C-alpha cells in the first residue's frame, strides 16, 4: 500500500537520483494531482476529503522538492542518512568563503549606492556560479557517489540561494 511516508521518487515512479527527467516529473505530478486533488472530492464524504487533502499536500511537497536542484540534492542526502544540517557543519573551503565575503561586500556597496546595474551584474555572476555548482552536485551524487563532497556542495548552494534572495530584495526595494 502506498503511504504518505513513501519517498518522493517512488511516488512519481522515477528512478532515485539527482539527474531527473523534468517532463516526466511534471507529467507524473499532474497525473497524480488529477486523481487526488480536493476539487475531485468536494462532493464526497469527509473521509475522502481528508485523504484527498493529505495526498494533494504530499504531492505538492514532493513536486516542490524534486523540482528544485538544491532541495532535490538535500533530499537525496537525507534519504542516504546524511545530516544536511547546514548550521552545524560549516567547514567550507577558504576560497569559497573569500568569494562569499567579496560578494557580500559588493552587495552591501551596491545597495548603499542604489546601483541597479551592479546588482543585476552580481545576480548574473551568482546565477553562473549556481549553475556550475549544480553540475558539480550531479557529478558527486550520480557518478562518484561522494556523499560528503555532495553535502558540502549543497551547503554552498544554500549560501548562494540566500545571497540571491538578498539581491532580489535589494532590487525590489530599488523599484518601489
Amino acid at each position, binding site marked *: *500500500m*502506498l503511504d504518505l511516508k513513501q519517498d518522493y521518487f517512488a511516488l*512519481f*515512479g522515477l528512478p532515485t537520483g539527482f539527474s531527473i527527467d523534468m517532463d*516526466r516529473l*511534471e*507529467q*507524473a505530478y*499532474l*497525473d*497524480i*494531482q*488529477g*486523481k*487526488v*486533488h*480536493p*476539487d475531485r472530492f*468536494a*462532493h*464526497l*464524504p*469527509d*473521509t*475522502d476529503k481528508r*485523504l*484527498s*487533502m493529505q*495526498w*494533494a*499536500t504530499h504531492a*505538492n*511537497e514532493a*513536486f*516542490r522538492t524534486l523540482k528544485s536542484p538544491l532541495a532535490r540534492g538535500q533530499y537525496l542526502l537525507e534519504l542516504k542518512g546524511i545530516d544536511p544540517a547546514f548550521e552545524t557543519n560549516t567547514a567550507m573551503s577558504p576560497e569559497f568563503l573569500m568569494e562569499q565575503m567579496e560578494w557580500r561586500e559588493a552587495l552591501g556597496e551596491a545597495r548603499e549606492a542604489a546601483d541597479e546595474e551592479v546588482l543585476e551584474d552580481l545576480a548574473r555572476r551568482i546565477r553562473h556560479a549556481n549553475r556550475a555548482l549544480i553540475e558539480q552536485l550531479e557529478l558527486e551524487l550520480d557518478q562518484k557517489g561522494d556523499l560528503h563532497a555532495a553535502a558540502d556542495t549543497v551547503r554552498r548552494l544554500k549560501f548562494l540561494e540566500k545571497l540571491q534572495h538578498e539581491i532580489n530584495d535589494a532590487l525590489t526595494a530599488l*523599484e518601489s
Partner: protein
Amino acid sequence: MALLQISEPGMSTAPHQHRLAVGIDLGTTNSLVATVRNGVAQCLQDEEGKVLLPSAVHYLADGQIVVGRKAHSAQAVDPRNTIVSVKRFMGRGLRDVSHVETMPYDFVDAEGMVRLRTVQGVKSPVQVSAEILKDLRLRAERSLGGELTGAVITVPAYFDDAQRQATKDAARLAGLNVLRLLNEPTAAAIAYGLEHASEGIYAVYDLGGGTFDISILRLSRGVFEVVATNGDASLGGDDFDHRLFCWMLDNAGISLPSDRDARRLLMKAREVKERLSLDESVSIRMTLERGDEVDLTIDRSVFVDITRPLVAKTLKPVRKALRDAGLDAGDVKGVVMVGGATRMPHVQQAVGEFFGQIPLTNLDPDTVVAIGAAIQANVLAGNRAAEDEWLLLDVIPLSLGIETMGGLVEKIIPRNATIPTARAQDFTTFKDGQTAMAFHVVQGERELVSACRSLARFELRGIPPLVAGAARIRVTFQVDADGLLSVSAREQTTGVEARVEVKPSYGLADHEIADMLKSGFENARDDMELRGLREQQVEAARVIEATMKALDADGGLLNAHERTALDAAIGALQSAADGQDARAIKIQLEAFNRASNEFASRRMDKSIREALAGQRIDDLRI
C-alpha cells in the same frame, strides 16, 4: 439489495443524479448567482427578471432586512442603516479601511474586524454579506426547485486569509455549503474556456463599479496560476459617472443642485454613459425641481476627453503587475475584460493599445465571473462528464510566517506556493526551564512584523522544563484548497505532546457563528431544528450514495469480512437517517467515517497507481 431502496422520497440515490450547485460572484457593487443547466452556464434572475443584485443591505427599525435594489435606493433616506460596498470591510480592522471619514456609518472598532452599529444592533461585515448571500441562495433554490448541494464563491485574488475566512463564514451563516473559494480572475478565465486554450500568460482587466483589479495568470498544462495582482481600490465606473455629472452641471450652468436633483442628475449621467457605449451622441433633457431646464447633447469624443485621465490611471497598476511578474505587455497572450465599465469603447481601445491586441469582450463583463464560478461549481459537485476533466491548481497570494525575535518574520510558506500545502518549522526555547511559548502568525511579504497582517496569536503550554535550546517545538502550517490556514504546534523531544490548533477567524469564533445562526432562526425555532435535521439527512444520503457507488466500482478491494462490516455501518447510518434525531445521525456519520477510512484509503491508493500506470503506458508508446 434492500439497502438501496431505503431512501426518502425525493432523495434519489440514482448514480447520475444532477446536483444543484451554483457559482456566486459576491461583488463590491453588485452580486450574482449562476448555475449550469443542461450543460449551459447561465445567471439566475430575480422575480423581476434582473440578474444583478446590488450589494446593499438596509436594516429597518421594525426588524425587517431589505437586500438589493430597494436597499440601494434607501441610501439617500437612511444612509446609516443602509450598508453598501460591505466587501471593503470584510476581514478588515477599522484602521485598514480607507476613507472612513467620508462614510455615513457608525463604525465600532472591534478586535479583528470592524463592526457597524445599525438600528438593529451592531452588525459584522460577515453578517451583512450573509444577507446578500442568503438572498441569492433563496433565488437559486426558487429557480432551481431544490436545495443546493453547494456553492463556489469568488474572491479577489489578493484577498488575504482574514478576508477569505470572513467570506467563508458569511456563506456558512447564509446556509450555503462552500465547495470552494475561487479567485475572481481565474473564474473569468474559466468562463472564457481558457483552460482549454493554449499555454501562456493571460491578463484579466477588471474595472467594476468602484474598484479596479488587474491579474496576471499563467496557464500551463491545464493549470492556472496567479502570478501577480495589482489594482486601485477606489477607481471604477462610478468615477466615470461623476466626471459626466460634473460636465453636465458645468454646461447647463447649474451650480448647486438640491440633493434630489443631484441624485437624478447622477443617475442620468450613468444612463448617458451607458448609451454612449453604443451611440456616437446622446441628448440629455431634464427639468429640475426649481424649474431649471437641462438641454444638452454630448458626443462620445467629449466623454472620452473628460474621462481620459481615469483610463490612464488604470494602466499604472497594470504596468506594476507586469513588472512584479517580470513580464512585458508583449508576453501576454490574451486579455480578458471583466466588469461593466469595460463596455466603454475607449477603455477597450486603451487596453488594446497597451497590450497590442484586441481584448476578449464577447462575454457579458458583468456576469463573466459568476459564469466561471458556476462552471467550477458544476465540476466540484461531481456533475462533470469524465471526458472534460481539467484541473485548477491555485496558489496562496501572500506569504505566511511566524514572528521571531526582534519583530522579524520567519516565512514558513512562501507566496505562490501551490495549495493545499503544509510546511513545518522547528523552534526552541530561549530560557532554562521555559514551559510555555507564544506564537504570532502573520501574513505578508515584508520582513518586519509591523508591516505584515496579524492573523492569530496563540500559546503552547506544557513544554517540559529543559535547558534553553533543548526543547524542539514543531510548528506546522496547513493551507487548504480554499487558501485557508490552520496552525498547530507540538513539543517533540520528550514525547510529551502539547498541541494547540489555531483556526484564525478574525473576531468571529465558531460559537459566535453558531449564535448568529441560532438568532437568525429565533422566530422559527422549529424551522431551525427541521433544517438541522434535514441537513444531516441530506448529508447521510450523500455519504451512503457515494459509498454505494464506490463499492460498485471497487468492492473487490475489501474481503468478505470487511465488506460485511462496511455494509453494517451503512445499515446503521441509514436507520439513523430514517429517524428524526439530528444528533443521532451526526454520531452515526462520525462512526461511519471511521469505519470507511480504510476502504477510502485503498481506493485512493488504487487510483494513484492507475495514474502512474497510465503514465508508463504513455512512455511505452513513445
